C-alpha cells in the first residue's frame, strides 16, 4: 500500500469514527425514516376531521333537503334544514357566533343548472368541499332521474361512479401504480439531495474547522494535502453511505413486507398500492449517491480551503449550492416526462444526474444503457473536479485572511 493511500485511510478512519461515534449519528440513522414518515403523516393527522361538521340547508327546490340530510348524515356530518326564506345574514351571524360551520343554499333552479353554494368557515378545506360536491352531485342527479321517470334501481346503476386508475410504464417494465412510483422516485431524488448536501457540506465545515483550530499546519506537515482531502471525503462519505444504506434497506424491507407491517397497524395491505423498491434501484441509488457525493464533496472541500472562517463559507459556497438546487427544482420536469428531452439531458449532466437519474429509472424513463452512460460521465467529471479541487485545496489550506479572487484561483489550477 502506498504511503499516501495508507495515510488517507488513517484520516478516513478518524473522520468516519468522529461521526459514527456521535449519538446524533445513531439517532438520525435509526430514527430518520420514522421522522420522514412522520413529516408526511403528521400534517394529514392534523387536518381537521370533517365528521361532525354542522351545516344548515336552505333548500328552495323543496325536494333536495331530505336526500342531502341523508347523504350528509351518512358521512357523519350534522345537517339541519331551515326554512327556505331564511336570510343569508342570519346564517352569517351564526357562523360568526360559531353556532354552525357553514350553510348550503340550494336555489329553486338547482335541478336545471342553478349553482348550489356552500359558505362556511371550512370552505377552503379540500376534504369538506370534495365530500359536499360528491353528495350534491349524487343527490341532484338522482332527483333529475326521478323527475325523468327512471326507476330507482336503474337510477343507482346510472349514477354509480366509473372505476379508473393511472399507471406509470415505459412499455417494458411491469406497470406500477402511477402515483406510488412517482412518490418513490420523488423520495429518492429528495433523499439524495439531502444526503449529498448534508455530507458534502460536512466536508467543507471539517476543512474550515481544521483551519480555525489551526491543526492544519500540523496535518500538512505530517501528510500530503491530497491524502488529507481524499481521506476526509472518504471518511465523511463512509458515514453517509452507512446512513443511506440503512435507510434504503429499511425502506425495501417495509415495502416487501408491507402486508405484515400494515397489518400491525390494523390496515389491510390490499388497499394500499406501493411500487417495489427492488435491489437494482437500491444499487443504482447508492452508485449515484457515492459518485454524486464525491463530485460535490470535492467542490465543497475546495470552498472550505478558500475561506478562513465559518461565516465566510456562506458566500463562497453559494455557486455550488445553487447548482444542487437547480437539480432539485428540475425534479418535476423529469418526473413529468421521464422519457422526454429535458429528462434525458438533465440526467446526463454530472451536476444533476446524481439527483435525477435514480428517479428517472424508477419511473421507467431510463434503460440500463442510459444509466451506464450517465455514471461514466459522472465518474470522469468527478475525477476532473477532484483533481482541480485538490490543487485549490493544497494551496488554500494554509491561507488565512485574504480570500482568493477568480483570477488567483485560475492561477492555482495551473500549478
Amino acid at each position, binding site marked *: 500500500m502506498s*504511503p*499516501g493511500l495508507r*495515510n488517507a485511510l*488513517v*484520516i478516513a478512519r*478518524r473522520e468516519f469514527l*468522529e461521526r459514527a461515534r456521535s449519538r446524533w449519528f445513531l439517532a438520525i440513522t435509526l430514527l430518520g425514516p420514522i421522522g420522514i414518515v412522520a413529516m408526511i403523516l403528521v400534517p394529514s393527522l392534523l387536518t381537521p376531521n370533517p365528521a361532525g361538521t354542522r351545516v344548515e340547508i336552505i333548500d328552495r327546490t323543496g325536494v333536495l333537503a331530505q336526500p342531502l340530510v341523508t347523504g350528509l348524515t351518512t358521512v357523519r356530518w350534522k345537517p339541519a334544514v331551515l326554512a327556505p326564506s331564511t336570510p343569508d345574514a342570519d346564517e352569517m351571524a351564526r357562523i360568526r357566533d360559531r353556532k354552525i360551520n357553514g350553510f348550503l343554499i340550494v336555489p329553486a333552479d338547482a335541478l336545471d343548472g342553478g349553482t348550489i353554494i356552500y359558505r362556511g368557515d371550512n370552505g377552503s378545506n379540500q376534504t369538506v368541499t370534495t365530500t359536499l360536491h360528491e353528495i350534491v352531485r349524487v343527490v341532484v342527479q338522482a332527483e333529475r332521474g326521478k323527475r325523468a321517470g327512471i326507476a330507482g334501481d336503474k337510477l343507482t346503476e346510472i349514477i354509480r361512479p366509473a372505476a379508473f386508475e393511472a399507471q406509470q410504464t415505459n412499455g417494458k417494465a411491469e406497470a406500477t401504480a402511477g402515483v406510488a412510483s412517482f412518490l418513490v422516485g420523488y423520495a429518492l431524488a429528495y433523499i439524495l439531495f439531502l444526503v449529498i448536501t448534508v455530507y458534502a457540506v460536512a466536508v467543507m465545515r471539517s476543512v474550515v474547522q*481544521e483551519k480555525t*483550530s*489551526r*491543526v*492544519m*499546519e*500540523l496535518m*500538512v*506537515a*505530517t*501528510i*500530503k494535502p491530497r491524502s488529507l482531502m481524499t481521506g476526509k471525503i472518504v471518511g465523511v462519505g463512509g458515514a453517509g453511505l452507512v446512513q443511506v444504506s440503512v435507510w434504503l434497506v429499511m425502506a425495501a424491507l417495509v415495502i416487501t413486507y408491507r402486508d405484515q407491517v400494515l397489518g400491525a397497524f390494523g390496515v389491510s395491505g390490499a388497499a394500499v398500492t406501493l411500487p417495489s423498491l427492488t435491489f437494482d434501484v437500491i444499487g443504482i441509488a447508492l452508485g449515484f449517491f457515492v459518485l454524486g457525493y464525491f463530485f460535490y464533496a470535492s467542490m465543497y472541500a475546495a470552498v472550505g480551503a478558500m475561506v478562513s472562517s465559518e461565516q465566510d463559507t456562506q458566500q463562497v459556497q453559494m455557486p455550488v449550492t445553487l447548482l444542487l438546487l437547480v437539480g432539485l427544482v428540475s425534479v418535476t420536469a423529469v418526473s413529468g416526462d421521464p422519457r422526454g428531452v429535458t429528462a434525458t439531458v438533465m440526467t446526463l449532466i454530472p451536476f444533476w444526474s446524481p439527483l435525477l437519474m435514480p428517479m428517472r429509472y424508477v419511473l421507467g424513463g431510463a434503460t440500463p444503457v442510459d444509466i451506464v452512460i450517465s455514471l461514466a460521465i459522472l465518474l470522469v467529471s468527478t475525477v476532473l473536479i477532484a483533481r482541480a479541487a485538490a490543487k485549490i485545496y*493544497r*494551496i488554500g489550506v*494554509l*491561507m*488565512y*485572511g*485574504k480570500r*482568493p479572487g477568480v483570477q*488567483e484561483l485560475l*492561477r*492555482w489550477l495551473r*500549478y
Partner: protein
Amino acid sequence: MSSALAVRGLVKRFGNHVAVDDVSFEVPRGVVYGILGPNGAGKSTTLRMINDIFAPDAGEIIVLDGLAPGHAAAQRIGYLPEERGLYPKMKVADMIEFIGELRGLSRGEARRRTATWLDRLGLAQWAGNKVQDLSKGMQQKVQFATALIHEPELVILDEPWSGLDPINAEVLRDEVEAIRRSGRTVLFSTHQMEQAEKLVDQICIIARGKKLLDGPLADIQRRAAGDGIIALGLGSDAASRAAADAVLGDRALVAERRAPRARAHADGADCEVKLASGASAQQLLAALVAAGVGLQRFEVVVPTLHQIFVDRVGTSAAVAERRPDAPSGAVA
C-alpha cells in the same frame, strides 16, 4: 555520517516580499541547534520548508541521509508548529496516537507509546478527555507529545517556549536535553535568547530573511570576545587608581572606557574597556602591572548570546516587520 539537516541557498518569496533570502546552514547530528532571529526574520518559513509545507523558490534541503522533504522524511522528523492546533473534539490519547500512526507507527505501537508519553508528561488522567477540555498549557504538552511520539531522529520545534509558564519551560528544556542525550538532533527557532543560551550547541542568526552568522556557540562567543572587551577591578587605593587612569587613558591601548555591565559589576568589576584596534589583552595587562596598579580583577568578557544577538541584528531590525503569515498568492 551525514548531517541531520543541510540547507543550501534557500529562497522563499511571497509576492514581492522575500521571506527567506539565500539562507544556508548545516545541522550536525546529535546537537541542539537554534535558529535565532527577531519576529518576521523568516524562521518559521524556513522550518515550514524543511517540513514540506511550502516548497522553496530556490535552494536545496537535505534531511537525514540525503532525503528531500516529503513523506519518507516526515516519518523521521517530529514537528511542533508555530501554529499550535489539535482536533478539539478528539480524545487526548486518540489525538497523539493518530499523529503517531500518520508518522508511520503501527496502531498498536502508537497506542503503547502514547501511554508512555501521557505518563511522562503527567497527562495520564486526562487521556480520555477531549482536547478542548484541557487548559492551554496542557494542550501544549499534548502538542509536544505529537511531535515526539514516533521518536524522530530530528525534532523541529518552532518557538517552543511561546506561551509556556516557567515550570513548563523547564520541563521542555529537560525534554530537549533528554533528546540530545539519546543522540538525536533538535532544531528549534526562538527569539528568546535566555532560553536558547541554556541549551544550544550551535546557532544560526537570521534577520530579514538573511543569515547573519552561524556556527558553534562557543566559537561565536570566543570570536566575539576577540572584539576586546575587558572588565577591570581596580581596587580602592588612590595611588593605584591614578596609575590605572594614566594607562587606560592611552589611546594606543584603550579605545573606550565605560561603566561595567550589571553582571560584571556584581562580579567585582568597576569599569569596562574596549581595546584599541591592534592592542591585545596581554599588552594592556603588562602595562597595568608595570604601572603598579593593584589589580583585583582582569577578565576578558565573553559576551552573552543576548549581547551577540543585539550587536549583530541591531535594535532596528528587532522591530517586527510585516509578518508573512498570510502568503497571499503563495504557491506551495
